Protein backbone atom coordinates (compact mmCIF):
# COMPACT_ATOMS: atom_id res chain seq x y z
CA UNK A 1 0.00 0.00 0.00
CA UNK A 2 1.57 3.25 -1.08
CA UNK A 3 1.12 6.20 1.24
CA UNK A 4 1.01 9.46 -0.51
CA UNK A 5 1.89 12.35 1.68
CA UNK A 6 -0.62 14.89 0.53
CA UNK A 7 -3.41 14.44 3.02
CA UNK A 8 -6.43 14.40 0.70
CA UNK A 9 -5.05 12.31 -2.07
CA UNK A 10 -4.11 9.12 -0.33
CA UNK A 11 -3.88 6.36 -2.89
CA UNK A 12 -5.44 8.73 -5.36
CA UNK A 13 -3.41 7.27 -8.13
CA UNK A 14 -4.39 3.69 -7.39
CA UNK A 15 -8.13 3.75 -7.90
CA UNK A 16 -11.08 5.67 -9.15
CA UNK A 17 -13.22 7.81 -6.89
CA UNK A 18 -16.04 5.77 -5.36
CA UNK A 19 -17.49 8.40 -3.04
CA UNK A 20 -17.26 12.14 -3.58
CA UNK A 21 -18.79 14.48 -1.02
CA UNK A 22 -18.77 18.22 -1.56
CA UNK A 23 -19.89 20.88 0.90
CA UNK A 24 -22.40 18.60 2.58
CA UNK A 25 -24.75 20.32 5.03
CA UNK A 26 -27.34 18.79 7.32
CA UNK A 27 -29.46 20.33 10.04
CA UNK A 28 -32.01 18.86 12.42
CA UNK A 29 -34.32 21.75 13.23
CA UNK A 30 -32.06 24.42 14.70
CA UNK A 31 -29.17 22.06 15.18
CA UNK A 32 -26.52 22.33 12.49
CA UNK A 33 -24.97 18.90 12.58
CA UNK A 34 -22.93 18.97 9.37
CA UNK A 35 -21.79 22.45 8.39
CA UNK A 36 -19.58 21.72 5.42
CA UNK A 37 -18.12 18.31 4.80
CA UNK A 38 -16.06 17.46 1.74
CA UNK A 39 -14.30 14.18 1.19
CA UNK A 40 -13.31 11.67 -1.43
CA UNK A 41 -12.99 7.94 -0.99
CA UNK A 42 -11.17 5.94 -3.60
CA UNK A 43 -11.57 2.37 -4.74
CA UNK A 44 -10.17 -0.02 -2.13
CA UNK A 45 -9.57 2.68 0.43
CA UNK A 46 -10.39 2.29 4.12
CA UNK A 47 -11.37 5.58 5.75
CA UNK A 48 -11.88 5.67 9.50
CA UNK A 49 -13.98 8.51 10.88
CA UNK A 50 -13.42 9.50 14.50
CA UNK A 51 -14.80 12.31 16.63
CA UNK A 52 -16.62 13.12 19.83
CA UNK A 53 -20.16 11.94 20.50
CA UNK A 54 -22.71 14.12 18.73
CA UNK A 55 -20.21 15.44 16.20
CA UNK A 56 -22.31 14.09 13.34
CA UNK A 57 -20.38 10.95 12.38
CA UNK A 58 -23.50 8.80 12.06
CA UNK A 59 -25.35 11.57 10.28
CA UNK A 60 -22.51 11.88 7.79
CA UNK A 61 -22.47 8.14 7.14
CA UNK A 62 -26.26 8.05 6.75
CA UNK A 63 -26.08 10.84 4.18
CA UNK A 64 -23.89 8.59 2.05
CA UNK A 65 -26.79 6.20 1.33
CA UNK A 66 -29.47 8.78 1.96
CA UNK A 67 -30.93 7.21 5.05
CA UNK A 68 -30.69 10.89 5.94
CA UNK A 69 -31.48 13.56 3.36
CA UNK A 70 -28.80 16.23 3.11
CA UNK A 71 -29.91 19.87 3.14
CA UNK A 72 -27.39 20.84 0.49
CA UNK A 73 -24.14 19.73 -1.03
CA UNK A 74 -23.30 16.87 -3.32
CA UNK A 75 -22.90 13.19 -2.57
CA UNK A 76 -21.70 11.20 -5.57
CA UNK A 77 -21.49 7.45 -5.50
CA UNK A 78 -19.59 6.12 -8.51
CA UNK A 79 -20.34 9.36 -10.29
CA UNK A 80 -24.09 9.37 -9.53
CA UNK A 81 -25.37 12.33 -7.55
CA UNK A 82 -27.65 10.54 -5.10
CA UNK A 83 -29.43 13.73 -4.06
CA UNK A 84 -30.49 14.46 -7.62
CA UNK A 85 -34.14 14.25 -8.56
CA UNK A 86 -35.21 11.04 -10.21
CA UNK A 87 -32.22 9.05 -9.04
CA UNK A 88 -33.00 5.38 -8.39
CA UNK A 89 -32.06 5.31 -4.75
CA UNK A 90 -32.72 1.60 -4.30
CA UNK A 91 -30.31 0.80 -7.13
CA UNK A 92 -27.68 3.03 -5.51
CA UNK A 93 -28.18 1.36 -2.14
CA UNK A 94 -27.75 -2.10 -3.64
CA UNK A 95 -24.08 -1.23 -4.06
CA UNK A 96 -23.58 0.21 -0.58
CA UNK A 97 -23.63 -2.17 2.35
CA UNK A 98 -24.29 -0.71 5.79
CA UNK A 99 -23.52 -2.16 9.19
CA UNK A 100 -25.24 -0.64 12.21
CA UNK A 101 -24.25 -0.28 15.83
CA UNK A 102 -27.24 -2.33 16.95
CA UNK A 103 -26.95 -4.97 14.20
CA UNK A 104 -30.55 -4.58 13.03
CA UNK A 105 -30.86 -8.19 11.93
CA UNK A 106 -34.40 -8.98 10.81
CA UNK A 107 -35.89 -10.54 13.93
CA UNK A 108 -38.55 -12.50 12.08
CA UNK A 109 -36.10 -14.26 9.78
CA UNK A 110 -33.36 -16.78 10.41
CA UNK A 111 -29.76 -16.08 9.50
CA UNK A 112 -30.01 -17.55 6.01
CA UNK A 113 -33.20 -15.65 5.17
CA UNK A 114 -31.73 -12.46 6.61
CA UNK A 115 -28.97 -12.80 4.05
CA UNK A 116 -30.91 -14.00 1.03
CA UNK A 117 -34.04 -11.82 1.32
CA UNK A 118 -32.65 -8.76 -0.44
CA UNK A 119 -30.71 -10.45 -3.26
CA UNK A 120 -33.69 -12.68 -4.07
CA UNK A 121 -36.34 -9.96 -3.77
CA UNK A 122 -34.29 -7.66 -5.93
CA UNK A 123 -33.70 -10.42 -8.48
CA UNK A 124 -29.94 -10.26 -8.07
CA UNK A 125 -29.85 -14.03 -8.19
CA UNK A 126 -32.02 -17.11 -7.76
CA UNK A 127 -32.83 -18.48 -4.35
CA UNK A 128 -30.37 -21.42 -4.56
CA UNK A 129 -27.64 -19.11 -5.79
CA UNK A 130 -28.28 -16.71 -2.93
CA UNK A 131 -28.27 -19.56 -0.42
CA UNK A 132 -25.02 -20.80 -1.87
CA UNK A 133 -23.45 -17.35 -1.64
CA UNK A 134 -24.77 -16.90 1.90
CA UNK A 135 -23.29 -20.23 2.94
CA UNK A 136 -19.86 -19.23 1.68
CA UNK A 137 -20.06 -15.85 3.42
CA UNK A 138 -21.13 -17.47 6.67
CA UNK A 139 -18.13 -19.72 6.42
CA UNK A 140 -15.96 -16.68 5.88
CA UNK A 141 -17.23 -15.02 9.06
CA UNK A 142 -16.98 -18.29 10.97
CA UNK A 143 -20.69 -18.96 11.40
CA UNK A 144 -21.32 -21.77 8.94
CA UNK A 145 -23.35 -23.66 11.56
CA UNK A 146 -25.73 -20.80 12.31
CA UNK A 147 -27.66 -20.59 9.03
CA UNK A 148 -30.87 -21.81 10.66
CA UNK A 149 -30.59 -19.77 13.86
CA UNK A 150 -32.76 -16.77 14.64
CA UNK A 151 -31.17 -13.49 15.71
CA UNK A 152 -32.26 -13.87 19.35
CA UNK A 153 -30.30 -17.11 19.53
CA UNK A 154 -27.00 -15.40 18.66
CA UNK A 155 -24.50 -13.47 20.74
CA UNK A 156 -23.79 -9.83 19.94
CA UNK A 157 -20.58 -10.63 18.13
CA UNK A 158 -22.30 -13.33 16.10
CA UNK A 159 -25.14 -10.97 15.22
CA UNK A 160 -22.73 -8.36 13.97
CA UNK A 161 -20.83 -10.87 11.89
CA UNK A 162 -24.11 -12.00 10.34
CA UNK A 163 -25.00 -8.36 9.70
CA UNK A 164 -21.73 -7.90 7.83
CA UNK A 165 -22.29 -11.10 5.88
CA UNK A 166 -25.86 -9.98 5.08
CA UNK A 167 -24.56 -6.73 3.61
CA UNK A 168 -21.89 -8.60 1.64
CA UNK A 169 -24.49 -10.96 0.20
CA UNK A 170 -25.61 -8.07 -2.02
CA UNK A 171 -22.04 -7.91 -3.34
CA UNK A 172 -21.71 -4.19 -2.64
CA UNK A 173 -18.85 -2.07 -3.89
CA UNK A 174 -18.76 0.05 -0.74
CA UNK A 175 -19.26 -0.83 2.91
CA UNK A 176 -20.26 1.66 5.61
CA UNK A 177 -19.79 0.80 9.28
CA UNK A 178 -21.37 2.86 12.06
CA UNK A 179 -19.66 1.97 15.33
CA UNK A 180 -19.98 -1.75 14.63
CA UNK A 181 -18.38 -2.80 17.91
CA UNK A 182 -19.75 -0.19 20.31
CA UNK A 183 -22.67 -2.30 21.46
CA UNK A 184 -20.57 -5.43 22.01
CA UNK A 185 -19.18 -6.96 25.16
CA UNK A 186 -15.39 -6.46 25.13
CA UNK A 187 -14.60 -10.11 24.50
CA UNK A 188 -16.59 -10.02 21.25
CA UNK A 189 -15.04 -6.92 19.74
CA UNK A 190 -12.05 -8.83 18.37
CA UNK A 191 -14.03 -11.30 16.28
CA UNK A 192 -15.92 -8.50 14.51
CA UNK A 193 -12.80 -6.40 13.92
CA UNK A 194 -11.11 -9.47 12.46
CA UNK A 195 -13.88 -9.87 9.88
CA UNK A 196 -13.50 -6.21 8.99
CA UNK A 197 -9.75 -6.52 8.68
CA UNK A 198 -10.16 -9.46 6.31
CA UNK A 199 -12.59 -7.43 4.28
CA UNK A 200 -10.16 -4.52 4.08
CA UNK A 201 -7.39 -6.90 3.05
CA UNK A 202 -9.65 -8.14 0.23
CA UNK A 203 -9.72 -4.61 -1.13
CA UNK A 204 -13.21 -3.50 -0.08
CA UNK A 205 -13.84 0.24 -0.11
CA UNK A 206 -14.84 1.05 3.46
CA UNK A 207 -15.91 4.01 5.56
CA UNK A 208 -15.80 3.11 9.23
CA UNK A 209 -16.98 5.16 12.18
CA UNK A 210 -15.34 3.70 15.25
CA UNK A 211 -13.72 4.39 18.58
CA UNK A 212 -11.32 1.47 18.09
CA UNK A 213 -8.04 3.34 17.68
CA UNK A 214 -6.12 0.10 17.30
CA UNK A 215 -8.20 -0.79 14.27
CA UNK A 216 -7.74 2.70 12.84
CA UNK A 217 -3.97 2.51 13.25
CA UNK A 218 -3.72 -0.93 11.76
CA UNK A 219 -6.23 -0.90 8.93
CA UNK A 220 -7.06 2.67 7.93
CA UNK A 221 -5.52 4.25 4.87
CA UNK A 222 -6.84 7.54 6.09
CA UNK A 223 -8.23 8.81 9.39
CA UNK A 224 -10.73 11.66 9.46
CA UNK A 225 -11.37 13.60 12.66
CA UNK A 226 -14.77 15.31 12.73
CA UNK A 227 -15.90 17.92 15.22
CA UNK A 228 -18.43 20.73 15.27
CA UNK A 229 -19.82 19.90 11.85
CA UNK A 230 -16.47 20.07 10.04
CA UNK A 231 -13.62 17.78 9.21
CA UNK A 232 -11.00 19.21 11.53
CA UNK A 233 -8.09 17.06 10.49
CA UNK A 234 -7.38 14.15 8.17
CA UNK A 235 -4.44 12.16 7.02
CA UNK A 236 -2.71 8.84 7.49
CA UNK A 237 -3.25 7.11 10.85
CA UNK A 238 0.26 8.15 11.76
CA UNK A 239 -0.36 11.78 11.00
CA UNK A 240 -3.72 12.06 12.74
CA UNK A 241 -3.34 9.61 15.62
CA UNK A 242 0.35 9.98 16.46
CA UNK A 243 1.20 13.50 15.34
CA UNK A 244 -2.04 15.47 15.34
CA UNK A 245 -1.62 19.15 14.65
CA UNK A 246 -5.03 20.55 15.59
CA UNK A 247 -5.66 21.28 19.29
CA UNK A 248 -9.15 19.76 19.10
CA UNK A 249 -7.76 16.51 17.72
CA UNK A 250 -5.12 16.39 20.43
CA UNK A 251 -7.75 17.08 23.05
CA UNK A 252 -10.03 14.32 21.71
CA UNK A 253 -7.22 11.77 21.46
CA UNK A 254 -6.11 12.52 25.00
CA UNK A 255 -9.60 11.67 26.17
CA UNK A 256 -10.05 8.41 24.28
CA UNK A 257 -6.56 6.95 24.44
Amino acid at each position, binding site marked *: MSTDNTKQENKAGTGEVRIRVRDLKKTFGDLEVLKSISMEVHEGEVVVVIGPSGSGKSTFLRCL*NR*LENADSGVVEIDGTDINARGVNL*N*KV*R*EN*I*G*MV*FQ*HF*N*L*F*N*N*LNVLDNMT*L*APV*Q*LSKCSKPEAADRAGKLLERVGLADKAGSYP*HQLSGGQKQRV*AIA*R*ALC*MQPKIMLFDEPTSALDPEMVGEVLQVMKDLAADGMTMVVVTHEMGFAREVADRVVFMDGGYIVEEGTPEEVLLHPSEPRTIDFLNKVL
Partner: protein
Amino acid sequence: MLRIITDYGGLLLVAMGRTLLLALLGLFFACIIGLIFGIMSVVHNRPCNIIAQVFVDAIRGVPMIVLAFFVYFGVPYLFNTIIGGFSVTLTALQAGTICLALNCGAYMSEIIRAGIQSVDIGQMEAARSLGLTYAMAMRRIILPQAIRTMIPSIINQFIITLKDTSILSVIGFPELVNTAKNVQANTFMSFQTWAIVGVMYLIVITILSRSAKRMERRLNVDR
Protein backbone atom coordinates in the same frame (compact mmCIF):
# COMPACT_ATOMS: atom_id res chain seq x y z
CA MET B 1 -87.40 -20.93 30.58
CA LEU B 2 -87.66 -24.44 29.23
CA ARG B 3 -90.54 -23.41 26.98
CA ILE B 4 -88.47 -20.69 25.38
CA ILE B 5 -85.65 -23.12 24.72
CA THR B 6 -87.90 -25.79 23.23
CA ASP B 7 -90.10 -23.39 21.25
CA TYR B 8 -87.61 -20.73 20.25
CA GLY B 9 -84.22 -22.39 20.73
CA GLY B 10 -83.84 -23.16 17.03
CA LEU B 11 -84.81 -19.64 16.09
CA LEU B 12 -82.33 -18.12 18.53
CA LEU B 13 -79.56 -20.39 17.30
CA VAL B 14 -80.18 -19.34 13.73
CA ALA B 15 -80.15 -15.70 14.89
CA MET B 16 -76.83 -16.32 16.61
CA GLY B 17 -75.59 -17.70 13.31
CA ARG B 18 -76.61 -14.44 11.63
CA THR B 19 -74.85 -12.49 14.36
CA LEU B 20 -71.68 -14.44 13.68
CA LEU B 21 -72.08 -14.00 9.92
CA LEU B 22 -72.47 -10.25 10.32
CA ALA B 23 -69.50 -10.08 12.66
CA LEU B 24 -67.30 -12.10 10.33
CA LEU B 25 -68.23 -10.05 7.27
CA GLY B 26 -67.65 -6.84 9.20
CA LEU B 27 -64.33 -8.06 10.55
CA PHE B 28 -63.14 -9.19 7.16
CA PHE B 29 -63.66 -5.78 5.60
CA ALA B 30 -62.49 -4.06 8.78
CA CYS B 31 -59.14 -5.83 8.43
CA ILE B 32 -58.78 -4.50 4.89
CA ILE B 33 -59.85 -0.99 5.88
CA GLY B 34 -57.64 -1.11 8.96
CA LEU B 35 -54.61 -2.21 6.98
CA ILE B 36 -55.11 0.49 4.37
CA PHE B 37 -55.62 3.33 6.83
CA GLY B 38 -53.05 1.95 9.27
CA ILE B 39 -50.38 2.02 6.59
CA MET B 40 -51.59 5.39 5.36
CA SER B 41 -50.99 6.77 8.83
CA VAL B 42 -47.35 5.64 8.98
CA VAL B 43 -46.08 6.34 5.46
CA HIS B 44 -43.99 9.49 5.03
CA ASN B 45 -46.67 11.36 3.17
CA ARG B 46 -48.54 14.20 4.80
CA PRO B 47 -51.81 13.97 2.80
CA CYS B 48 -52.06 10.22 3.50
CA ASN B 49 -51.43 10.79 7.21
CA ILE B 50 -54.12 13.45 7.35
CA ILE B 51 -56.72 11.40 5.47
CA ALA B 52 -56.13 8.46 7.81
CA GLN B 53 -56.33 10.67 10.87
CA VAL B 54 -59.56 12.32 9.72
CA PHE B 55 -61.13 8.93 9.01
CA VAL B 56 -60.23 7.55 12.41
CA ASP B 57 -61.36 10.69 14.24
CA ALA B 58 -64.63 10.85 12.33
CA ILE B 59 -65.58 7.24 13.01
CA ARG B 60 -64.47 7.37 16.62
CA GLY B 61 -66.44 10.56 17.18
CA VAL B 62 -69.78 9.17 16.02
CA PRO B 63 -71.80 6.60 17.99
CA MET B 64 -72.32 3.45 15.99
CA ILE B 65 -76.10 3.67 16.24
CA VAL B 66 -75.94 7.03 14.45
CA LEU B 67 -73.61 5.54 11.85
CA ALA B 68 -76.08 2.68 11.36
CA PHE B 69 -79.04 4.99 10.75
CA PHE B 70 -76.90 7.17 8.52
CA VAL B 71 -75.76 4.30 6.32
CA TYR B 72 -79.09 2.44 6.22
CA PHE B 73 -81.47 5.40 5.79
CA GLY B 74 -79.31 8.43 5.08
CA VAL B 75 -77.11 7.22 2.26
CA PRO B 76 -79.90 5.79 0.05
CA TYR B 77 -81.92 8.96 0.71
CA LEU B 78 -78.95 11.03 -0.42
CA PHE B 79 -78.66 9.21 -3.72
CA ASN B 80 -82.35 8.62 -4.43
CA THR B 81 -83.86 11.91 -3.30
CA ILE B 82 -81.29 14.61 -2.70
CA ILE B 83 -79.12 13.92 -5.72
CA GLY B 84 -81.84 11.98 -7.47
CA GLY B 85 -81.76 9.67 -10.42
CA PHE B 86 -80.22 6.76 -8.57
CA SER B 87 -81.98 3.85 -7.07
CA VAL B 88 -79.83 2.76 -4.21
CA THR B 89 -81.13 0.26 -1.73
CA LEU B 90 -79.15 -1.40 0.96
CA THR B 91 -80.24 -4.57 2.69
CA ALA B 92 -79.91 -4.53 6.44
CA LEU B 93 -77.06 -7.04 6.13
CA GLN B 94 -75.18 -4.82 3.67
CA ALA B 95 -75.69 -1.69 5.74
CA GLY B 96 -74.74 -3.57 8.91
CA THR B 97 -71.58 -4.93 7.32
CA ILE B 98 -70.59 -1.46 6.15
CA CYS B 99 -71.16 -0.01 9.63
CA LEU B 100 -69.16 -2.69 11.37
CA ALA B 101 -66.39 -2.54 8.79
CA LEU B 102 -66.06 1.23 9.13
CA ASN B 103 -66.30 1.26 12.88
CA CYS B 104 -64.03 -1.69 13.57
CA GLY B 105 -61.78 -0.64 10.67
CA ALA B 106 -61.03 2.67 12.36
CA TYR B 107 -59.98 0.94 15.55
CA MET B 108 -58.03 -1.68 13.62
CA SER B 109 -56.20 1.07 11.81
CA GLU B 110 -55.09 2.50 15.14
CA ILE B 111 -54.01 -0.96 16.32
CA ILE B 112 -52.06 -1.55 13.11
CA ARG B 113 -50.44 1.90 13.27
CA ALA B 114 -49.32 1.31 16.85
CA GLY B 115 -48.09 -2.17 15.94
CA ILE B 116 -46.01 -0.90 13.04
CA GLN B 117 -44.58 1.89 15.15
CA SER B 118 -43.64 -0.57 17.87
CA VAL B 119 -41.16 -2.25 15.49
CA ASP B 120 -37.65 -0.84 15.94
CA ILE B 121 -36.91 1.79 13.29
CA GLY B 122 -33.57 0.04 12.71
CA GLN B 123 -35.43 -2.84 11.02
CA MET B 124 -36.73 -0.52 8.31
CA GLU B 125 -33.37 1.24 7.96
CA ALA B 126 -31.50 -2.03 7.55
CA ALA B 127 -33.99 -3.18 4.93
CA ARG B 128 -33.80 0.08 2.99
CA SER B 129 -30.00 0.13 3.22
CA LEU B 130 -29.97 -3.18 1.33
CA GLY B 131 -31.94 -1.62 -1.50
CA LEU B 132 -35.34 -3.12 -0.61
CA THR B 133 -38.29 -0.86 -1.39
CA TYR B 134 -40.52 0.55 1.33
CA ALA B 135 -43.29 -1.85 0.31
CA MET B 136 -41.01 -4.91 0.36
CA ALA B 137 -39.65 -3.95 3.77
CA MET B 138 -43.17 -3.43 5.08
CA ARG B 139 -44.44 -6.75 3.81
CA ARG B 140 -41.46 -8.96 4.59
CA ILE B 141 -39.95 -7.37 7.70
CA ILE B 142 -42.15 -4.83 9.48
CA LEU B 143 -45.68 -6.27 9.25
CA PRO B 144 -44.71 -9.82 10.27
CA GLN B 145 -43.10 -8.40 13.40
CA ALA B 146 -45.90 -5.92 14.04
CA ILE B 147 -48.58 -8.65 13.83
CA ARG B 148 -47.23 -10.40 16.91
CA THR B 149 -47.60 -7.36 19.11
CA MET B 150 -50.98 -6.58 17.58
CA ILE B 151 -52.65 -9.94 18.15
CA PRO B 152 -54.01 -9.35 21.67
CA SER B 153 -55.51 -5.99 20.68
CA ILE B 154 -56.96 -7.42 17.48
CA ILE B 155 -58.66 -10.24 19.36
CA ASN B 156 -60.01 -7.74 21.82
CA GLN B 157 -61.34 -5.68 18.94
CA PHE B 158 -62.94 -8.77 17.37
CA ILE B 159 -64.83 -9.43 20.59
CA ILE B 160 -66.02 -5.84 20.80
CA THR B 161 -67.19 -6.04 17.20
CA LEU B 162 -69.09 -9.23 17.88
CA LYS B 163 -70.92 -7.47 20.68
CA ASP B 164 -71.47 -4.38 18.56
CA THR B 165 -73.53 -6.40 16.09
CA SER B 166 -76.34 -6.10 18.65
CA ILE B 167 -76.56 -2.38 17.91
CA LEU B 168 -77.53 -3.25 14.36
CA SER B 169 -80.80 -4.68 15.64
CA VAL B 170 -82.08 -1.11 15.23
CA ILE B 171 -81.97 -1.32 11.45
CA GLY B 172 -83.94 -4.54 11.53
CA PHE B 173 -81.30 -7.13 10.75
CA PRO B 174 -82.58 -10.31 12.41
CA GLU B 175 -79.49 -11.00 14.48
CA LEU B 176 -79.70 -12.31 18.03
CA VAL B 177 -80.97 -9.21 19.86
CA ASN B 178 -83.51 -8.34 17.20
CA THR B 179 -84.84 -11.90 17.22
CA ALA B 180 -84.90 -12.01 21.00
CA LYS B 181 -87.07 -8.89 21.06
CA ASN B 182 -89.65 -10.75 19.01
CA VAL B 183 -89.44 -13.77 21.28
CA GLN B 184 -90.00 -11.52 24.28
CA ALA B 185 -92.96 -9.85 22.59
CA ASN B 186 -94.53 -13.24 21.87
CA THR B 187 -93.92 -14.81 25.25
CA PHE B 188 -93.78 -11.86 27.67
CA MET B 189 -91.00 -13.76 29.46
CA SER B 190 -88.42 -11.02 29.37
CA PHE B 191 -86.30 -12.29 32.25
CA GLN B 192 -85.90 -15.73 30.73
CA THR B 193 -85.42 -14.50 27.19
CA TRP B 194 -82.66 -12.04 27.96
CA ALA B 195 -80.97 -14.42 30.37
CA ILE B 196 -80.76 -17.00 27.61
CA VAL B 197 -79.50 -14.44 25.10
CA GLY B 198 -76.90 -13.22 27.58
CA VAL B 199 -75.67 -16.74 28.18
CA MET B 200 -75.47 -17.39 24.43
CA TYR B 201 -73.22 -14.37 23.91
CA LEU B 202 -71.19 -15.35 26.95
CA ILE B 203 -70.56 -18.85 25.65
CA VAL B 204 -69.53 -17.77 22.16
CA ILE B 205 -67.26 -14.99 23.38
CA THR B 206 -65.65 -17.18 26.02
CA ILE B 207 -64.89 -19.84 23.44
CA LEU B 208 -63.42 -17.17 21.17
CA SER B 209 -61.21 -15.55 23.75
CA ARG B 210 -60.01 -18.92 25.06
CA SER B 211 -58.91 -20.11 21.66
CA ALA B 212 -57.39 -16.71 21.00
CA LYS B 213 -55.34 -17.04 24.18
CA ARG B 214 -54.15 -20.42 23.02
CA MET B 215 -53.18 -19.06 19.62
CA GLU B 216 -51.33 -16.18 21.24
CA ARG B 217 -49.38 -18.59 23.42
CA ARG B 218 -48.45 -20.74 20.45
CA LEU B 219 -47.19 -17.71 18.51
CA ASN B 220 -45.04 -16.71 21.45
CA VAL B 221 -43.50 -20.15 21.79
CA ASP B 222 -41.92 -20.30 18.34
CA ARG B 223 -40.66 -16.75 18.61
